[in-house]
Each structure stands twice: as C-alpha cells, then as structure tokens.
C-alpha cells in the first residue's frame, strides 16, 4: 500500500482552473449523494417487493447488502466532511483508493447479495463518481484503468457467485460493465482535456489583454510624447517605428491578404519603413472585405503608387482612402493622395511602374484608374475595383 499513494501523487491530472476544478468536484459529490439515495431505495424496494410476493427469488443476503450500502454511504459522508475542510482533499490518494476499494467490493459481491437476476447492480452507478474523480486527479488513462478495473470486479463476482439461471459468463451483457465503466473514464478524461485546452486559451488571452491595456496606457502614450516633443529626427523615427510595431502586436497581427483594409495597411507599413514616409490609411467602417484577386491587385497597386509618390513627387505625407461605392459594380473606391510636388498631366508621360503595376493590375480585375496631378497640390491616384 505504501508505494501506491506516492505513485498516484506523481500522476499529473489535467490542468484546469481551480474554480472549475472545485465546481466539478462539488458536482461529483452531489452526484454521489443522489446515486447513494437512489441505490438504497432500489435495494430496499427489491427486498420489500420480493418478500411481499410469493416468488422464490428472495434477495439472498439482505442484511449484508444493507451493510454494504451503508458502507458506501459512510464513504460519501466521510468525503463530504473532508470536502468541507478542503475541496482538494477529495483528490488525495487515500480517499480515492478507499472509494475504489468500496466500489469494487460492492460490484464484486453484487451477485452474491442478490443471488438471482436483478435489474440494477447493487451500487448502481455510484462507482462512476470515483472514475470521474480519478480523471480529474490523474487524467484519462488512470480513469479508464479504474473503470475497467471496477467492471472486472463485477465480472469476477459473476464467475465466482454464478446465478442459478443460465446466462453465459461470456455473453455481451456480462462484458458491458467493463466497457461502460471504461468508456465513462475515457469520456471524463477527454472532456477534461478539452476544458484544459479552453482554460489555457482563456488565460493566454487574458494575459495578452492585460499587457495590451498596460502598454496602451503607458508605453504608447510615452512614445507619442517622444514623437511630439523631440527635435531629434532619429529619435522620432525610432519612436514611430516602435509605436507601429507595438500597435501591430497589441491590436492583432492581421494577415496581409485577409481583406482590402489589411492589404492597404501592409502596403503603407512597407512604404513607411522603406522611405520614412508618413502614410495614413483611412478605411470606411463599412468597407467590404473584397475578393482575393481585388485584395492582391489593390495591395500591390497602392504599394507602387506610394513608391511613385516618394520618387517622383518627393512627398512625405500620404493619405490612402478606401470606401464602398454606392453603385453595385464596381464596388470599392480607393484613392492615394500625396503632399508632394504634383505634376502636370499634359507634360508628364507615364512610366513603366504606373502603366504596368497600377493600370495593368487594376484592369486585370476589371477596375479603372484615374490619375490627377496639379503642380503644387500633390498627386492623387483614384481606383475603382
């Protein structure tokens, strides 16, 4: 006996949050009481009912049966006392082993007590409580082992104390207890592992929320102060980059190709990092996500327009704007407006980049492009897709 408690202690149960664990254990305790009352009622009724009729099938050992049930009920009472002191006391090796032992004895002596065919086993489903408890304390495999062990105890009882009637010990109904108790252990273990995964996700999420709140209130504010109050251009750029990275981390790293808004933001981010340009991306709140083709086309076209704004216009500030259009087709309007030198459309010929990367890509997805320039007013490229 001395090695078993330490063995059980070493087993790692699923890591579920203490409140959930306490709730489950409390539930199982209530389950023990309900089933305890039920199995007592069933047994007493059997004794009374059979004694009343003149059938030959009396309960063979009624007094022993009542003593055994009393034993199970006192275990339940003892567990309740322990529970009131500390919930975790329910999952210690000693109570678990005691309960397994009592459950096994009840199942083993079931046929001996009744001595004839009967509808429910002596302890009914009371042993399931300890199978659940093992699942919480030690995980799926020990729970399945406990269930199979308890089923075997009943099966063994059948072999040693055979019924006067004729059911073969090899029939399916005889093996059913082993399977059902085993399955109970497996299901409990599986559900708990799911709970474990959910708990882990929740705690990761909470930690992240907490970090986000703290950083939002503190670090982002500080980075904003630095950007506004420093004359050191390098420091400002550094603070700006850090702010962007932090924001991306905090408010979700969005997949670039998820929708039009994130594709535009990604293009803007790239241009900001490459040229030290300030790009404001403004997307209407009701902007549709767009088809994969249009997302890709708009993302690369806007990237090219931003390159042009820096290279040809010498711009340092650009606004990218996207909104749904009123008419059904085409459905999205995107504009890129810079504060650069602008140009005179009459004298400037379009370069390769503009023709292929912007007009070509947008035309491929059935859209159109307008380019507007005015010396001293910056350039604007408008796209409908």
């Amino acid at each position, binding site marked *: 006996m001395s090695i078993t408690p330490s063995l059980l202690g070493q087993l790692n149960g699923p890591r579920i949050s203490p409140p959930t664990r306490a709730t489950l254990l409390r539930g199982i305790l209530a389950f023990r009481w309900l089933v305890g009352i039920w199995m007592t009622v069933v047994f007493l009724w059997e004794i009374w009912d059979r004694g009343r009729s003149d059938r030959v099938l009396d309960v063979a050992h009624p007094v022993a049966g009542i003593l055994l049930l009393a034993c199970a009920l006192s275990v339940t009472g003892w567990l309740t006392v322990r529970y009131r002191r500390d919930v975790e006391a329910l999952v210690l090796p000693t109570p678990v082993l005691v309960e397994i032992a009592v459950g096994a004895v009840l199942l083993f002596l079931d046929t001996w007590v009744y001595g004839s065919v009967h509808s429910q086993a002596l302890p009914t489903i009371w042993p399931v409580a300890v199978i659940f408890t093992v699942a919480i304390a030690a995980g799926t495999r020990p729970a399945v082992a406990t269930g199979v062990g308890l089923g075997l105890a009943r099966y063994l009882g059948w072999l040693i104390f055979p019924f006067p009637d004729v059911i073969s010990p090899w029939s399916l109904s005889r093996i059913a207890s082993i399977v059902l108790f085993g399955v109970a252990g497996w299901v409990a273990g599986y559900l708990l592992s799911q709970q474990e995964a959910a708990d882990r996700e929740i705690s990761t999420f909470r930690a992240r929320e907490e970090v986000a709140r703290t950083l*939002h209130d503190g670090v*982002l*504010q500080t*980075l*904003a*102060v630095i*950007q*506004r*109050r420093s004359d050191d251009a390098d420091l400002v750029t550094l603070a*700006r980059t850090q*702010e962007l990275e932090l*924001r991306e981390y905090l*408010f979700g790293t969005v997949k670039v190709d998820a929708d039009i808004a994130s594709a535009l933001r990604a293009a803007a981010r790239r241009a900001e990092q490459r040229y030290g340009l300030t790009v*404001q991306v*403004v*997307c*209407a*709140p*009701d902007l549709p996500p767009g088809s994969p083709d249009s997302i890709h086309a708009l993302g690369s076209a806007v990237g090219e327009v931003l390159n042009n704004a820096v290279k040809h216009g010498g711009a340092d500030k*650009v*606004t990218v*704007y996207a*909104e*749904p259009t009123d008419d059904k087709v085409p459905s999205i309007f995107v*504009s890129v*407006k810079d*504060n650069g030198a602008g140009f005179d459309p009459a004298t400037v010929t379009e370069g390769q980049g503009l023709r292929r990367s912007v007009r070509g890509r947008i035309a491929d997805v059935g859209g159109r492009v307008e380019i507007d320039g*005015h010396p001293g*007013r*910056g350039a*604007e490229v408008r796209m409908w897709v």
Partner: protein
Amino acid sequence: MSFTSHVTVVLADDHPIWRSGVRADLGDNFHVLAEAGDADEAIAAIHRHRPDLVVCDLNMPRGGGIKVAKTCGDMTKIVMLTVSEAERDLLDAVAAGANGYLVKSTPPQELRDALWRAAKGEPVFSPALASLVLGEFRKMSKDSGGVQPLSEREREVLQYVARGHTYKEIGEQLFIAPKTVENHVRNILGKLHLNRKQELIRYALEHGIE
C-alpha cells in the same frame, strides 16, 4: 494671429505628465485656465472658467471625453485628443458635440495651429474622422428615414477631406472659397449632431420616457 489675443483653455487628461507636456507645447498664444484629471473635474472647470477651448482626452475615468462633449458641447469648443484613430468612441464624441479631434502624436506646431483654428470655430477634421462620418451617414440613410441626409456637395466635400485634401485644395478643385468648404464641414457636423439628438428623442418617445 495677433500677439495680443490669446485663447483660454481647459486641459483634461488623466495623465499629469501628458497635461504638462501639452501645456508646454501650447506656447504663449494659449492661456491654460485649469487642468482636470477626469470628466467630472473637466465639466466643473468648464462651468467655472468658461474657456474658449477645451482640450480633452477621449479616454478618461468616469465618462471620458464623450461625457464632457455631451455636457459642455454647446458652451465651448471641444477638441478630443486620442492615441488611436481606430477608437470607436471617436465618432460618438464628435456626434455628442466635440469640434473634432487630434491624435496625440501630432507635432507641436501642427497641434498649435489646429487648436488655434478650432478655437476660432473651424472644425478639426482629419481624413479618418471624415471617413467615419461618411460611414455613419451611409448607415443612417439605410437604417431609418427621417434623418437629415447630406447634400451632394457636402458629401463631396467630406469625401475630399477623407481622401486627404486640405480645405484650400478642396476649394481650388470645387471652385469655391476655403471658407465655404469650412462652412460645409461645420454644417455636416451640425447635421450629425442633430441626427443623433433626434435619434435619442425618437428612442425616448418610443420607450415612453418623458
């Protein structure tokens, strides 16, 4: 901008370091009458001092900028300061009566200019805010009748702002004076404000609130 006149300001933000930073940036043309650390303090200070301008953090304890705009929007010009333009409350603050907003990373010179213009009654609109307002009007016109829609010209102006054009640039392209552009923007804000108010009244009537 004359050197003899100055704008009186109440500064509200729950971070003292931020208040002192903005205070330093405002320079000589602004006179800070009082500072406040939350919405209630700000409202009390506005009632006491009657400033030309309130510079107010969007997120503050006990109600934040929206509460301040709701309570004092008719008494003075309120400009929201915000860390992020993605904040949902932004539109609510403006609809509640704020004159516009600025992001906290606005450089000092730009901040001073914008606040000066705000104090003179010019709405401080950014492309992001214009886009939010456009979206709101699209939503309102879909949801319910009875709202005052934007005129074609107002919608056009607002879209120009959203696309990143300055009032001056918009004026040149629409062949109107920058002042007229500004008036359009102010009217748009007024309609937004009015529609929100009517929405509240309608809600109150429908639910039997006197």
